[in-house]
């Protein structure tokens, strides 16, 4: 259960890059919000994504435990509950138009991971 109450967005220093797991996810609690953070290595390039950890279909905080992969040209995570895919760039559910999750800006500065919300 979560409620977004923050009035102004800001960058949060969340964790060390070492806390991330390549091609997998971890979860951070940022201002009361559960955020799933994925580190994806593709073609030698590493990208970090942050989305809400809340699975709107399974209704549980589990998205960081899903398998990361690609579907056609999209980088996605599969919900570990019912296997719907969420586009890590847009938060859109590929199987259901009416479902999506929030996405958050994320950046890596030196050895730290920052998320904006």
């Amino acid at each position: 259960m979560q409620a977004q109450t923050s009035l102004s967005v800001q960058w949060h220093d969340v964790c060390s890059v070492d806390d991330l797991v390549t091609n997998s996810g971890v979860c951070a609690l940022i201002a009361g919000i559960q955020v799933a953070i994925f580190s994806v290595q593709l073609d030698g390039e590493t990208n970090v994504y942050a989305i809400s950890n809340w699975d709107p279909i399974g209704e549980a905080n589990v998205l960081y435990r899903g398998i990361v992969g690609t579907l056609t040209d999209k980088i996605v995570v599969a919900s570990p509950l019912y296997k719907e895919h969420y586009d890590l760039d847009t938060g859109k559910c590929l199987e259901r138009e009416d479902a999506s999750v929030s996405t958050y800006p994320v950046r890596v500065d030196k050895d730290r991971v920052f998320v904006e919300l």
Partner: protein
Amino acid sequence: MNFSSRQQRIVIIGNGMVGHHFVEQLVNSEYNCHITVLSGESRLAYDRVYLSSYFSGKTAEDLALTDEKTYQDWGVKAVTNAWVSNIDRENQVVTTKAGGTYEYDTLILATGSYPFVPPIPGNDQEHCLVYRTIEDLEAISASASQSKVGVVVGGGLLGLEAANALKQAGLDTHVVEFAPQLMAVQLDPMGGELLKDKIEALGVQVHTQKATECIEAGESCRYRMKFADGTHLETDLVLFSAGIRPSDQLAKEFGLVTGERGGIVIDNQCRTSDHNIYAIGECALWDKKIYGLVAPGYAMARTAVANIIGTEGEFTGFDMSTKLKLMGVEVGSIGDAHARTPGALSYTYHNQPEGVYKKLVVDANKALVLGAVLIGDTSDYDTLLQYALNSIALPESPEALILPSAGEKPLLGADALGDTATICSCHNVSKGDIVGAIDSGCCSVGDVKSCTKAATGCGGCAALLKNIVDSELEKRGVEVSKAICEHFDYSRQELYHLIQVGQIHTFEELLEKHGKGLGCDICKPAAGSIFASVWNDYILAKQHQPLQDTNDTYLGNMQKDGTYSIVPRVAGGEITPDKLILLGDVAKRYNLYTKITGGQRIDLFGARVEQLPAIWEELVAGGFETGHAYAKALRTVKSCVGSTWCRYGVQDSVTMAIDLENRYKGLRAPHKIKFAVSGCTRECAEAQGKDIGVIATEKGWNLYVCGNGGMKPRHADLFATDLDDATLVKYIDRVLMFYAKTADRLQRTSVWMENLEGGLEYLKSVVIEDSLGICAELEAQMQHITDTYQCEWKTTIESPEALKRFRQFVNSNETDSNIQFVAERDQIRPATKAEKFSAGKAIPVELV
């Protein structure tokens, strides 16, 4: 005239394969008629094509195609030992020697043929025999028992079959052929030569260009055959198989038109010169040709039936192409094998070291296949035959059709075939029939097979059938790709092979060498499972961890609220009071919901991800191991209490169950695997509903395989009986490893076996007879799995790196506030959505 007032009377003379086929077709047509069969032999129809199997143990009963009871059930009157002495064509009455009279409206002559015995002096001696009937076989068998050497006169198809029979009867076997080569009708000289080499390598001496002058008393053997070239050969037995002659005596005697060199002349409707009489099979002469094979005889039978029942049908010749195995040597011949068509061109491929010869004959324009000869490898036969029969335009370089390793062979596209193209000649199924079956709802090769009977005869068209079905399904938008997902163009079985042979240990390497993209939730767990089956590394090793489904990643079963359930191993369902107390104690302190599972274990629900390591630390310290309830792996070996306690038990099922569970624990597979062991035939462990079921007998164990419960229950099949402990384990090793190696992703053993071509029998041949020669490898692979077993939870709690994954938050020690429980029947359960919102009504349970 009022025909409907009485049934048509149809009399068939002869009950060989063709005569029987006629009866069968007529009965199936449900035409209103009365059928009488007059058989000159003492028994009803039997399979002459497989006569030589009599010498490898088949009996006359095995060869029988029908019996009196069947004919009775069909309403067919069958008379054996019935020699026809008169045909009164005017009054339409047949009389037998025994004095029986049979009136007919339509008469069928299916009198077959008799073996041609060359007019050689001495050919009528006691041990000079022919090869046609079961009585002949009995005579050969009796003679062989008093003989050491046997000679077959005739090097054609039948002669070589007969030679096989003599060889199987244990004789030193020779083949004597008048022509310069073997199978001169079907093969070109080069093909005949190679066939000779191969047959000689199998221990049968071949003598070509030998004209036998006489058979006289021998010195070292019973007889001596003297040849025109002055040479001779000593033998105890002579078997003539130098061709057939049509049995047309009745036709000649009663005034039907016959050919100059014999044979009852028939038209395209298979009618003789008498409108009421048909002739079919080897006694019939169509377009001056006698057909000495069963398939054209069947076609004639179908034609005659069609005309009798009024649906019309024509016999317009028959393709005599043939593919067979002679003493294990593959031989194929199509159409104009000798390239006699004016302007015909040939391509040949000869691989002497491997004993393969292929010739492709095409027309002057290199547009059509006219014929082919294949020795040693007939894998191209079906494709070439389709090209020839259906006049399909050849590709640019026709030689590619017979050349090996010239890159991808131009596969005969299903679309190149017209609807009338015959796909299965055994059951006369056209492409149109197959398309029709798909239109009416068939959506797999299996469906089409059972619907049309295609590919259920010799099976030679199986590949082509699959090709057509796949193509038709694809046109209808049904996905038939074997590719596991968009990242790999391979099936799971192919990936397994690539990983094992290529010594691939990481997903990155697999992706780089054989795939594309990043992978996904289909291929990653599949690859992770294969790595585990092949190498058995720690499943949460850094390189494997991202591949696993959440259950494997957290070594627990995720529930709907994101918590996990914990199932420690309780091998064989046997547990000490101390361990029970420990489970209770842990459950109580962590406030977990407990339930007994179907696999005789205890499941602890409601553990949050960050609690798992601490819980397992206690369980491991108390002697528990992980139960793999979360994995596609061996789950449990259920058992009854067995002979130790039970009054009825005949074996110690508990010990066996514990031993089996400990041997196979940790084995990862395409899907979960469940076992059970019952101590007696009362089967209290329900072993027949398991992937591997073991049931005690007085003498040992009966092994059942490939059963399951669940959505589509399937009874396991009895695989082997009265096994000792060691053999039981050996067979299970092999079955499981073969399954792990060849099944599709998420395919249970039951579906796997049903999809194996040849099913249970095939699995038996692989596992019991080692028909693929892989049993040693399968056992070694299983031994590796057993030897490298580790309790994943023990390894995990000892690894600080692995433990980092068991945090809800990387930056906080808070817990997931959405996980809430309420009390029910003195235990916890997840709160419903409504309960979470109106916390006042529900009784929240305090989190530990």
